């Protein structure tokens, strides 16, 4: 499980890998926080429930990270721990339910405008799943 920044001329790209889809989403969120230079106020922890549906895994990843960007901008919250379950057998495709654990943002150095679908493919690897996410900054 991990992430690394990779070269992209104009924007930011992040390679993420994990054992399964919930962990891949969690790790991508941590990577996004690192790219944006997010530092949390450790004193007051906060929880937020989350519920999302998406037609496929890539769309779910984009929707999940976009939700976190929205919460960062509107509620000044960022999250570093995630309890996520994903049901793959709904009529809408994939359904994510869970709880985000985090705190208010003490410092953020970079604005991420959006999470893109550019060349986004969640691929199976011998160790689990891997994807490269490009962010518009």
């Amino acid at each position: 499980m991990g992430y690394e920044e990779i070269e992209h001329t104009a924007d930011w790209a992040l390679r993420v890998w994990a054992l399964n889809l919930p962990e891949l989403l969690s790790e991508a969120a941590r990577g996004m926080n690192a790219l944006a230079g997010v530092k949390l106020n450790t004193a007051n922890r906060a929880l937020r429930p989350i519920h999302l549906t998406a037609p496929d895994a890539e769309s779910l990843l984009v929707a999940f990270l976009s939700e976190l960007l929205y919460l960062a901008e509107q509620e000044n919250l960022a999250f570093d721990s995630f309890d996520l379950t994903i049901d793959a057998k709904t009529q809408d495709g994939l359904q994510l339910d869970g709880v985000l654990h985090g705190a208010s943002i003490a410092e953020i150095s970079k604005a991420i405008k959006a999470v893109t679908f550019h060349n986004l493919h969640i691929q199976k690897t011998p160790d689990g799943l891997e994807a490269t996410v490009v962010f518009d900054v």
Partner: protein
Amino acid sequence: MELKHLRKISDYEWEIPQSYRHDMRASVRIFATRRLLEQIADDQSLEQAVNATTLPGVVSPVVVMPDMHQGYGFPIGGVAATAYPHGVISPGAIGYDINCGVRLLASSIEYEAALPYLDTLATLLNAYCPSGVGSEGVVRVQVEELNKILRVGARWALKRGYATEEDLERTEEGGKLEDADPSQVSERAKQRGREQIGSLGAGNHFIEVDVVEQIFYPEAAQAMGLQEGCLAVQIHCGSRGLGHQICTDYVQSFQHAVHKYGIHLPDRELVCAPMDSPEGKAYMAAMRAAANFAFANRQLLAHSARRAFEETFASRFKKEWRLRQVYDIAHNMGKLETHAREGQRLRVCVHRKGATRAFGPGSPELPAEYQDIGQPVLVPGSMGTASWVLVGTEASMERSWGSTCHGAGRVLSRAKAKKQVRGERLREELEAHGVKVRAGSMSGLAEEAPQAYKDVDMVVETVTHAGIARKVARLRPVAVIKG
């Protein structure tokens, strides 16, 4: 892409023929020198331009400007026209920062006389023009008021005393795109916009005070109010979180639309819908609302810049401090336009992403004072380097869908720029060269260092030699405000 696949038309113009890849529906026309092409050969710019030719209804050619660089889905510096009404509109071919653009204001204050007060001016501009990550704007509006802004754009600012009639006349589309519909904008987007109207944001957005260093086309400069040796102000920003959210919403919903309409694309970020479909109409109405928000946003920032100029200079300079608008132009937009092609008049949606509209002389869209010279084109350089004022030409109408370049264009990734440049050191160097700097983040400053960009002069030489723009004036920065 290997450059051997390109057909040379001239030293400044190249083509990727439609035969290059089986799924291309159009050729690609590239305005670049060989040297500029070599700079971008290692990234995905040209492949992304080829991908753009697969959009259903695209009309040949897809055009790429010399400041091109790799984007996501569609290259930065790209222009694609799709036939109206059955062709598609693609949110990713316009970008997340809908109507990101540049406004230029000119004064009659001579640089030498202003020099002792530039520190004060930079501090006041920084104070009155909110910038930085998630910055909130100079006014906070309720949803009803925001809906008015989304419908009428900069016209809203006129009614509130933040604009003049001349400002609107000298703004693309008069600062208001027709047929914008706030009901097609999500509540989330509105929530983000409500708090950010009148703010600069972060990233590559800036306010810059320049001195008009050299004039190349005196008649045009006079019409624009640009005087050699005098101060001018550039404002570069867009539709903030509201535009980002609209693009995010529609790129997600169009993932379904492409299946519904049987559209096959090489990159999901290019998702699109026919303009005459319910999905296409909804996006166009929302995109126009975001564009109107951006026009109003730059208008409020111009108002704040005028306040800073007045407080710094009004007691020392009689009328010279007044900032008159030169022009306001978008470089991320989708617009319905009529273009002549092979003797026919075509109604097309011109997607410009990191490319500037550049209408030639006589275009009915231009105000009376610009009818003879063509539309002003504002080309900001990288921080600390020159910027340019150009005008559109007859050739830009004929060969590039009435478009030209939009800036210097990145050549280094942000990560590499941060490794090579330290923000504090860069600020010291800029200050040593007479550029006052106010920046919210030193790492953000480093990412936007001049070394991260192509040579803007080379970009401008390319478009002017190719004939798709004409030089009017070169501007030199003397103060930069960045988020």
